[in-house]
């Protein structure tokens, strides 16, 4: 469920503010002003970047990939990478 939920008015409103939609519709990638780039020659797939990303913006995969749609550009992954395989680039 990554879509927006349409609530036009009282007609389709749950009686209490009951939220069934998921926040994943909110593409937080637009918050970013620096972007992590993984150097796959250095990456050992240790998965620390995945483990410490507060935005679940690193895939749990071998090798990991940055999900730019959601990455807020905090830089935690780059800071935590033990082999310095991630650099933060201006822009994107």
């Amino acid at each position, binding site marked *: 469920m990554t879509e927006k939920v349409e609530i036009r008015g009282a007609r389709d409103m749950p*009686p209490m503010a*009951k939220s069934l939609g998921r926040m994943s519709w909110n593409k937080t990638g637009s918050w970013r002003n620096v972007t992590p780039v993984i150097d796959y020659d250095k990456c050992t797939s240790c998965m620390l970047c995945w483990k410490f990303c507060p935005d679940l913006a690193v895939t749990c995969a071998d090798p990991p990939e940055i999900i730019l749609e959601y990455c807020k550009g905090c830089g935690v992954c780059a800071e935590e990478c033990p082999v310095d395989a991630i650099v933060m680039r201006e822009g994107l």
Partner: protein
Amino acid sequence: MKEVVTGNHVVSHAARVGRAQVVSAYPITPQTQVVEKISEFVADGVMDAKFIKVESEHSAMVACIGASAAGVRAFTATSAQGLALMHEVLHWAANARLPVVLANINRAMGPPWTIWTDQIDSLSQRDTGWIQFYAESNQDIFDSILIAFKVAEQVDLPAMVVLEAFFLSHTAEPVDFPDQEDIDRFLPPRPARNTVDPENPAAFGGLTGPDHYYELKYMEHNAMLEAKETIAAATQEYGDMTGRYYKMADPYRCDDAETVLVVSGGVASTAKDAVDEAREAGWKLGSLKIWAFRPFPREEVRALLLGRKRVVVVDRNISFGQEGIFCSELKASLYSQPEAPPVLGFIAGLGGRDIKGRDLLAMAKAGEDPDCPEFNWYGVKP
């Protein structure tokens, strides 16, 4: 089955036969016996409920909210300072649309410390979104609590049953208890709506902006209005079961009355005797008991009061800087209606000062004086 029971114990019995599943309460005079009795019921196994012995009224209400959010029937009782302490979360229960039921024993607010009755504690909670019933007798307390559960659970709003300290809470009266089977038929298990369920994850009450908040309030108000119909249906059903038919606004000998005394709570019963006395003397006096204060019986009071010579409202409460609260509510309902009678307000009985039949008659009499001011303090010692 009839038993002679104090008002407080009636509250406990109503929670028991109404099958409250979670009770959470904190002791305060004059409510303590409610808590003690329910503890006893739960400990003896005659009541299948969890009793959370919280450290404050605030937590009592919050625990009821949590339990209600889990889908069960939740009940609490309190008084005065306790009710005031709950204030923030009374809003929470209503806005979360959870049908918690609370019995409030009217007690005047301190300081100075006092334990005697008046209605400022419960009327201060007027705008929290709670349904409110004011009981006249111990029988009323019992019946009102069962009706409160039913109505609350149908419209998804919490409900408060209000009774006066000592005059009702500590006074034993005969009370008729319907058979449990009948009660269970009247009050089936709670339909669980707006409840948390790990199988259907959702967030409840999260950050809501101006785009949606407004409609939620509109819906809450509509639920309160819908409660009028629900109350009408529930009282009809309850009456058919017990022979006791409740009315949101309940007139007594009003048919040809020129002056109508508007009262609430236990004073309504005193008013009936006073009206009988007046009638014997040929005085065209009637009384009107407001049983349901929220939702307010606007249409009912109009039907009953328009065209009367005058209305005298006796308020055991005051909104400082304005007037008695029932008086304001009545005026708001009658204003600009054709043949709206003059409404004369009397403050009486604050802090538990007795309101006797002769006091009511004196107020009615004073109200009949064409020079009677709109607002009056009755019986202040100068």
